């Protein structure tokens, strides 16, 4: 278990820092490749969402320079970055991944989106071969744990999503949402969800703009709304009272002068911007205008923080599940660590036994089936007796996390070959079963 993880999230780093580290989807495969090519890293995966950037790795010896990787990759000053970074190893890394996948580390605890995002990141890294045996095991388990948390606790069901917080805020501004118009910029799941919530609370009509006009049309049809060409964005935007924006633009698409234009055309009626894009779509300068209420992803978090208390109890139960799952995973991993050694020890002794029987058989001549069986039983018996203590010791060591040392000793004593690659997950599972049966 040589997992190592580095990253930052909404708690450790402000939006300004996260913005600079966000890796666009299109760059993810390359980043994964770069990661696995970095010294000391066997497998690697990158999770980049608007709330977190995390580098998850399985290392050669448990000590890869992940800070170095981040600095090199983002060309950022260490002093600016390091204060916001957290790093976890082994058991702690496993726990962190379990918590992230189960949405316990989310801005809105219990929201379901993060699991999908982690799965996508996993699929991307797997597709480029950056995730193989070890991370595969970790994430398969993480997904199972997330499922368990979701089904056994109410963390997910009572989740206060960004969407419902947006509705609450809109009501604080507009009173009733009856007849209010919504503009969605950049088609995304999150903005779609927010729009759906707003419509459910009475918002009247909807406009959709997207860089790809076809996607805008698609989304507009879903809501019975109107697709707007991206070029016409600024000339139509003032018609909406609520703007949900989530484009992947590298810079703010709404600046102060746009806000001033909108307000002039709207006769200063207020506008509510829900900016769920990272980097932000609405410049902070525009948010300062009277009549413009712009909430970015961090502001929304503050708004939901008051709801957190309600779910604390459920979250505690979820944490307990995670803790037991981490223990289980660790135990299984360590057993897996000793299994190859046990198997090769068995193979080694079996080879010796076979060779010895073959050597002796020539001298003894033809044996009756009974004699044959007796010889088999005798030799097997000796080997099993001899192997009993080493195997028990290995298994105990696995549980007490001294596996590596004991495995080393056993391998050296018996001159066992170290396998260059870990076996794939499934066969490892089978061997683990074999190992435990003996």
């Amino acid at each position, binding site marked *: 278990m040589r997992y190592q993880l580095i990253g930052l999230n909404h708690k450790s780093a402000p939006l300004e820092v996260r913005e600079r580290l966000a890796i666009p989807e299109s760059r993810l495969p390359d980043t994964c490749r770069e990661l696995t090519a970095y010294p000391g890293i066997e497998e690697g995966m990158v999770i980049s969402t608007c709330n977190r950037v995390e580098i998850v790795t399985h290392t050669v010896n448990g000590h890869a320079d992940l800070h170095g990787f981040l600095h090199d990759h983002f060309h950022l000053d260490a002093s600016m970055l390091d204060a916001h970074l957290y790093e976890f190893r082994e058991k702690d890394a496993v726990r962190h991944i379990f918590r992230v996948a189960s949405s316990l580390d989310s801005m809105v605890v219990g929201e379901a989106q993060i699991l999908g995002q982690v799965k996508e990141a996993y699929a991307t890294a797997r597709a480029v071969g950056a995730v193989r045996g070890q991370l595969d095991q970790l994430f398969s388990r993480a997904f199972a744990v997330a499922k368990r948390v979701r089904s056994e606790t109410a963390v997910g069901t009572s989740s206060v999503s960004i969407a419902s917080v947006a509705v609450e805020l809109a009501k*604080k*501004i507009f009173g009733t949402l009856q007849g209010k118009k919504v503009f969605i910029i950049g088609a995304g799941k999150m903005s779609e969800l927010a729009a759906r919530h707003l419509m459910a609370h009475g918002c009247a009509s909807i406009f959709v703009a997207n860089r790809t006009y076809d996607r805008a049309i698609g989304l507009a049809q879903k809501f019975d709304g109107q697709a707007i060409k991206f070029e016409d964005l600024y000339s139509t935007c003032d018609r909406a009272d609520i703007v949900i924006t989530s484009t992947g633009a590298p810079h703010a698409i709404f600046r102060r002068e746009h806000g001033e234009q909108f307000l002039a055309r709207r006769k200063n009626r207020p506008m509510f911007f829900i900016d769920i894009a990272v980097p932000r779509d609405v410049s902070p300068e525009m*948010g300062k205008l009277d009549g413009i209420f712009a909430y970015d992803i961090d502001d929304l978090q*503050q708004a939901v923080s008051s709801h957190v208390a309600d779910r604390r109890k459920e979250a505690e139960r979820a944490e307990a599940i995670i803790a037991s799952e981490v223990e289980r995973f660790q135990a299984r991993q360590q057993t897996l660590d000793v299994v190859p050694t046990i198997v090769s020890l068995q193979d080694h002794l079996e080879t010796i036994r076979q060779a010895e029987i073959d050597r002796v058989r020539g001298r003894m001549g033809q044996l009756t089936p009974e004699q044959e069986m007796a010889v088999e039983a005798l030799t097997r018996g000796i080997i099993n007796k001899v192997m009993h203590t080493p195997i028990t010791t290995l298994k105990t060591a696995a549980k007490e996390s001294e596996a590596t040392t004991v495995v080393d000793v056993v391998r050296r004593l018996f001159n066992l070959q170290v396998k260059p690659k870990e076996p794939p997950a499934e066969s490892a599972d089978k061997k683990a079963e074999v190992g435990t049966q003996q």
Partner: protein
Amino acid sequence: MSLLWLRFALGCYFVGLVYAFVALTRTSDLFSRIALHAATIGMVFHFVSLTELFLSGQIAWASVHNSESLLAFLSMVFFMVIYAIYQTTSPGVVVFPVVFFLTFVAALDEQPVLLTQFVSHKGWLIAHIMLIFTGYAALLVSFGASLLYLLQERRLKAKKSTSLIAFLPALEVIDQIGYRSLLLGFPFMTLGLITGSVVAITAPSIGRVDFLDPKILLSVLMWAVYMVMVFTRWNSGWRGRRAAFLATFAFVAALAAWAANYFSAMHRFGIS
């Protein structure tokens, strides 16, 4: 007797005053209900007091103190109308202290009313007083709303979900309250000034009207500011900081026009 009823009313309004201060720091449904009931009872006493004055035969409202009492009552009426429409007691934060202050001054002592020279214009005079005070009350509510608007705007901009001043209604609701009272008050104010001029010009005992009288100048100034407010609001939808600034200006002008009673020849209603 009317003074006694007024003092009862004052006691009730005191509850409202306390509410106004408490509401700024925390929200309490129970307390806002208590304040509402106290205010209602206060209004009943207040109404009795005003009716007695009216029935006393003289144009008793035309004393400074009694007119303050009338203004306080009209402001409370506005407050109640807003409550009926929007189910919010939050304008009370501004209205209650002002009403309390006005009622307090009015309840201090009884002033002699000697307006004999206006008897022939009694109808006009009553119309003038009623209209102009309704206008004042509307302006007060509008001013209060613009302050609340600023508060709520700050709160939304600060983006912190504190329970502090969480009692405020939605921004657009506050805006509507302010705008509607402004619109409603304008014709009253205008007609009030017109009827006032009619009384002034036609009153036989006054004779020549001095248009440089501070009372008249300040009233005209207030009316002008009022008109600018309505216009900017209607034309370019001014609200928030700019509207609050204008409303404050109009309110100060109104206060000045009011205070001018003490040094203008116009409204020296027989102060002995």
